[in-house]
């Protein structure tokens, strides 16, 4: 059973806090959201795959099965870990709340 902590799609102030400082530390209210987002099943969990060591990473999803490789999402490539965290936060926000994250 996934985490039951509800994410209020109206709390875009917390989303802004994440976007400003994606690596944390986060406020307690934001950390609850981030914890909810990170508490997923292993199969399909987003991870970053090194394309160029310490310089470039591609988004991928775990297989959840020993011996089965990650699935690379070829169109999602990042040159900073912060940008990768932002992109995944945005996807998970919409997945969990059903509302796209729109920030000015």
């Amino acid at each position, binding site marked *: 059973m996934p985490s039951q902590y509800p994410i209020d799609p109206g709390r875009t102030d917390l989303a802004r806090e994440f976007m400003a400082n994606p690596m944390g530390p986060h406020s307690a209210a934001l950390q609850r959201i981030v914890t909810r987002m990170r508490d997923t099943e292993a199969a399909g969990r987003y991870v970053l795959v090194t394309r160029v060591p310490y310089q470039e990473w591609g988004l991928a999803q775990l297989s959840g099965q020993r011996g089965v*490789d990650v699935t690379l999402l070829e169109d999602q490539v990042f040159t900073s870990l912060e940008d990768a*965290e932002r992109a995944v936060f945005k996807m998970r926000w919409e997945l969990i709340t059903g509302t796209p994250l729109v920030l000015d």
Partner: protein
Amino acid sequence: MLEKKIAGYSDEISVAPGERIRFMVSCEPGVDRYQADIVRLISGDRQPDGPGYRDELLPTPVSGEYPGRTQETYCGSYAVVPDGPAFSALNDLSLQAAIFPTLPGLRRACLISKMDVDAGRGFALWTDPADGLVLQLGDGAGSLQEFALGQAFVAREWYLVSATYDAAGGEVHLSQQLLDSYALDTSSGQARHASEGTAVVACDAPLLIAAASREEARGKPVGEMIFNGRIERPVVASRVLEDSEIEALRTGPVPLDLRPDICAAWDFAHAIDTDDIIDISPNRAHGELINLPIRAVRGSNWTGDELDFNHAPEQYAAIHFLDDSLYDCEWDVDFELEVPADTSSGLYAARLTAGDQEDHITFVVRPPRNTATASLALLIPTASYMAYGNSRGGIEFGNELLANHLAVIGPHERYLNRHPEYGNSMYDNHNDGTGVCYSSRLRPLINIRPTHHWLWQLSADMHLVEWLEAQGIPFDVITDEDMHQDGVSLLERYSCVMTCSHPEYYSTNMWDAVHAYTQRGGRLMYMGGNGFYWRVAYRDDKPGAMEMRRTEDGSRSWASEPGEYYMAFTGEYGGLWWRAGRTPQSLVGNGFIAQGFDHSSYFRRTADSHDPRAAFIFEGIDDEIIGDFGLIGGGAAGLELDSASRGYGTPPHALTVATSEQHTDAYIRVNEDIGHMLLSIGGQDDPQVHADVVFFETPRGGAVFSTGSIGWSSALFHNDHDNNVSRMTRNVLDRFLDPTPLT
């Protein structure tokens, strides 16, 4: 995108000048040749702010190009019994065992086999996902007859299974009986079949338990279709046994009246601390275990009254077989090194390169035996390297909640995932969910590499090596295994012994050696966190293997089954050293209290730090804040933290000279220190979540300095080593190398 394609291992982890070490290498297709060199490792961390990778070539005859080749690894555990007179008269047949299948639905798996498939001779007893017990008999004409019971097994239940063949009547009888009692049970049953013609059950193939085999490699049958689960008291008989006789053979000695008809009855309660399986029938058809199946596990008759297998071995007459366990890859040797006589002690590697490919098979050159060539020894925690070796958590789970950021998967993790046959770390589970309680270094340990992007164990310890090299302080390098074998005599040659960042796993010999060293005037610098935590065991006749049980409690990824807390290798109680009455706090002044993996923090000096006894530690340091920088998480107080505690045994006169603060909520207090579960367990709420830097004097002029944090060494490099962590470390080291007694 870089794909890792080359890896290897060595037969030894620590060698003295003049001794030999052999290297085994396997390349995936595309690596036809590689260059090998022996190098002294200086530095490893390649992250942009880090010191980078540096080594020094050791000129040896090893340097040169070698052909790349793929070497096969055969994982999975089973037993082999050579063919012999015990099985020569087989005509009628009875097979039986108590079994506890853990993955009965995965695929067909073999319980007992003795089969020449090409000739169509022999027998094999299987579990089948749909049909339950299946017997195969050779027809003598190149084929097999197959007889199925027809009811599937339930996982993780004990069954008594038996199969008989009456040659004269051509009758096959199969039985699988659940040994527990449930109101509804559709998994037990019996079946009778008639064979077509006469089966030929005798053959000259070896007998295997928990596997079948069609070919030999490296001098023994290759196990296939390996059974996951427990097998107890397998028996082979040369006539059809009655139900009452089968029941009598489940436990206890072989009844006198059955002895003429029993080919073999293996009692796994014997020789639990070995690879031997003992046949208690007069034939003495003993066998050998391959790839470390788990021994000292509960049998079908375990009552729960006795928790120590040493006291009731008859209740531990089962062996847990696994299709992914591994002791020794047994690859062919690619090259070997005779360590030149004048080689200085240090951390070395066979550096393999091929285009963008590289691997570092890391080993230690210890000083010539029975000598020291420096006043300082760096103690490489090879036991902890083995415990973490081939950790699969990154690519199997992502460890995202643990780290509080997205996992980064590099070529090493994907390579390891492509090679399940290289076995697991002690943090993983076997394919059937069983926790991994044995490790071995006779296989590539993919994450135990000086340049691994996950800065943990060896890769993190390179920060300390880099600092020592930069300080220009001569040091010898020794290992856990050296200390386990040589005892305190190894340490006593040194004025000061320095640990690495995370010496977590300790055998009794190792613990005793460190303790004796501190009691005999030695000076110990414990340069990490969560040390001296889990108890492990080695076996003298099984070099490179190690055992550990995750018992009672402790920060752990799996837990041992009840009644399985004693280690098969030595019979010792496993788990936390604390639970054996030896706390880390009593040995080094602090012990594991909390962990977190997002942001590291800093230390603040305490009132104790102004005690004149601690003056030497802070010489030249005016700062109140220590280590608010570092290459792991940005601080010296990070990852796993140790605190002082009088209640847990910190010596009464110990000084806590610095304490960390402001840890994030990703830092959580260890579960063994939690009684009632309260909301306040994170770093922001729980004052126990902190690290203590501890100093205390020991008898005969010795002393201990403990940093309390795995992250400490990651701060040494900051500002070209000109920082307060580096200065404190150097102050302590200089004083500890000074022979003047500390008291």
